[in-house]
């Protein structure tokens, strides 16, 4: 097959996939406003997505804060700007590192989990069985999961930010004798709503993207058990890529409003 034809087919497949995902998202919005909502399943999914991811996110955030401070500190000392460490660390973590790292971890853990779970249900025809039994599988499986990830990810980001800032504080305290009060005074002296609100808002979008891609790939899994693995894998890859695209858009939009 000629390369150009192959490229066109790839683009066609890309647009086709984008269109399908958009339709899937549109169906989610239709279903989410249509009562009744599966509250029990939603709470269960929130527990799985939020509470069960907390340890992983907290440990990662703590290490990120610790390592980030250790890596940046020598350079700041060279510039004679070690006093600006809390400000720099806090802005970096709150604006960017906290949300994107947490989202990537959740994409790996939750996105693959949702993709594999829904994919196995699909290939074992459990979803078809639910339809036959009169239950709306989309509402029960997809809406609850997407909502859970969308709602829990911002909370996980806030906790990851807090733990990461605490990790950075430990380094500052051990290496620079900075007290807890001075450190957090400096942190909050330099963080403004322009840092806090956009990062929290984009976390909702990150969560929505992870849930949407995971559910879409799992809900549309094909080709038996191999499809389950592919669904999990592709869910992680696409959602991770989508996170960076969304992050870029979020930064551009934030800059527009921040300049205003």
């Amino acid at each position, binding site marked *: 097959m000629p390369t150009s034809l192959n490229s066109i087919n790839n683009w066609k497949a890309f647009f086709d996939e984008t269109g399908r995902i958009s339709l899937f998202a549109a169906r989610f919005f239709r279903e989410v406003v249509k009562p009744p909502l599966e509250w029990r399943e939603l709470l269960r999914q929130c527990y799985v997505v*939020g*509470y069960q991811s907390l340890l992983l996110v907290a440990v990662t955030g703590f290490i990120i804060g610790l390592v980030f401070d250790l890596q940046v500190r020598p350079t700041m000392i060279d510039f004679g*700007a070690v006093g*600006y460490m809390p400000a720099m660390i806090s802005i970096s973590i709150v604006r960017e590192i906290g949300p994107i790292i947490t989202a990537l971890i959740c994409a790996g853990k939750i996105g693959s989990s949702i993709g594999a779970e829904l994919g196995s249900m699909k290939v074992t025809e459990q979803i078809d069985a639910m339809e036959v039994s009169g239950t709306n599988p989309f509402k029960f499986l997809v809406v609850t999961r997407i909502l859970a990830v969308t709602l829990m990810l911002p*909370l996980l980001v*806030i906790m990851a930010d807090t733990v990461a800032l605490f990790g950075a504080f430990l380094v500052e305290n051990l290496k620079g004798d900075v007290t807890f009060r001075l450190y957090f005074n400096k942190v909050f*002296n330099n963080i403004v*709503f322009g840092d*806090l609100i956009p990062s929290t808002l984009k976390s909702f979008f990150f969560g929505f993207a992870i849930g949407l891609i995971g559910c879409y790939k799992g809900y549309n899994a094909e080709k038996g058990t191999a499809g389950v693995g592919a669904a999990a894998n592709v869910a992680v890859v696409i959602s991770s890529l989508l996170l960076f695209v969304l992050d870029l858009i979020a930064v551009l939009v934030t800059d527009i409003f921040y300049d205003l």
Partner: protein
Amino acid sequence: MAKEIRNTVRLGIFVIVGVVLFTIAVYFVGSEQNLFGSKFRLSTVVSNANGLRIGNNVRYAGIVVGSVDDIVFVNDSTLRIEMILEERVRDFIRKDAVASIGTDGLVGNVIVNISPGTGNQPRAKDGEIIAYYSRPDPNSMLETLDTTNDNVAVLSKKLLEISMNLNEGQGTLPLLLRNAEVAVDVAQTLKNLRQATESLTRTSMELQRAMGQISEGKGTLGYLLHDETLPHQLENLTTRLDSLLIEETRPVMENLQKSSRDLAASSAQLMAATQALEAGDGLAATILKDTAAANNLRDILRNLNEGTARFSEDMEALKHNFLFRRYFKKLEKEQKKKG
């Protein structure tokens, strides 16, 4: 079912902790931007905001007391910076307080600094427009630094030339640097100078000690300076001297006056005699005015002298004459008896 309830509780705790953390963050960030608590507004008018943005800190006497709320264009060359400040500093900000735009450190955020006004002015009201002081911007400072750098370069070049001349050239300073004998001489001079200084110090100390004694009233000079009765005594002495002088000099003065009067009379008589001498025809006038007569008189006197001398010789010869010798001896004896 119990497991589901336990999971739900855990989820509830997780959500509450997350929300509380977010609320705390919002509260602290809002506090820094003075969104909570009572506050008041001040504004100032500037021509250049120097990169100031909404939300930047406002400091009063070096303490963060507020933030920039808005930056408004008044016209094409004027901006009004509106600030929100904490109520607690309201009593300290006077109407003549001055705002200026600066930076937090050399490379920090742009901030507004408010300098306190004078205490005798009333406190600034809500919405008051305070004066603005424009500080030199970093660009002009860098231009000045650039000029300074050029000057330093020229100076260092000149210094290099001087040090090369010192190392290699002629003259006093290079000689000092290279010649060991001169160095020894300089060292000796310095030693002498040090000795002279020490001597001067000792002298100074002695002088100081003497001055101290004088201050304490010791010694003649000290007595003279510190004896309070001395002026009175001097005054008495002066009075007495005055009276003594008057008493003693009065007769002398009277005698002087009398002598003066006598002298004046004598002088008048002398003048009359002189006039009479000049005008008269007597012997004296003739002698004074007639040269021939004077010469005759001089000849007569000379002849008289000569005659007298010869008479003396005759008398001496007569003494030795045997006829008169006895008489003269008798006369000598009588004179000796009288003496």
